[in-house]
């Protein structure tokens, strides 16, 4: 997992598997980030090969923390075969789904300008 700070968002790059055994590390890092600032969060899943409900739970927790503050949880780079679970769970309506990090960061900037 790699964490990158931008002025408008914190990006978490996740590679490999996001399941019951790997989520505690990400959860800790995301929660630390949420304690420290109220920036948008971008999950870069372009190198993600597998995610289950434990991984999705972290996205939901982030959303529950940020949404009341008017911030966004953005998900980008999801592979086609994984995108299906965002559709069937309805999470694609909750998180902003972006093609890549550049598009997600641009969207953050546009949203800030519109406020």
């Amino acid at each position, binding site marked *: 997992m790699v964490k990158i700070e931008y002025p408008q968002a914190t990006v978490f790059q996740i590679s490999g598997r996001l*399941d*019951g*055994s790997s989520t505690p590390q990400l959860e800790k890092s995301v929660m630390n980030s949420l304690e420290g600032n109220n920036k948008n969060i971008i999950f870069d899943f372009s190198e993600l090969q*597998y995610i*289950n*409900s*434990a991984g*999705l*739970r972290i996205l*939901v*927790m982030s*959303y*529950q923390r940020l949404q009341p503050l008017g911030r966004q949880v953005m998900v980008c780079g*999801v592979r*086609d*075969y*994984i*995108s*299906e*679970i965002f559709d*069937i*769970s*309805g*999470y694609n*309506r*909750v998180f*902003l*789904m*972006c*093609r890549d990090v550049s*598009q997600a960061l641009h*969207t953050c900037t546009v949203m800030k300008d519109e406020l």
Partner: protein
Amino acid sequence: MQKEKHPITARFEFTLSPPEENQAALLAAIEQFGHVHALPEAYRYRLGLIVDELVTNSIVHGACKGIDHTIKVDILNQGKVLIIEIIDTGRPFDPTTHSLSQPCPEGAPIVLGGAGLCLVRRLANQMHYTRSKDHNHLVISLNKVPEENTYTWLK
């Protein structure tokens, strides 16, 4: 179920005892089974996710004090369909009764729990549950899918 209609082209068997120590090995073995039998990526993902969620559910909610908790996973590759059988010694639990509702239905507050079983119910083509001789016995059929999915990104 479709179990009797198609010849078996491959069989996978794995017993988890104790389950919590063997789950990662099970999932790795299923991924390997999918590669060996050239299952499409999307199909391998669905297969792994269904087994992962059901085994996790049995480990977290099914174990009873004083009872040897064992989970057995069989997968039959019948060409156009995979038959997944999960037999465990945990508490009686019928996943087919779990709500099909999305964890975040349109216009309603987002819900944290229950997403795993919802995904299983929506991904599986058929599910059949029985309870006999202190075992949960779940049979799931998963039809092979073409890799047609192309995601619509934020415009």
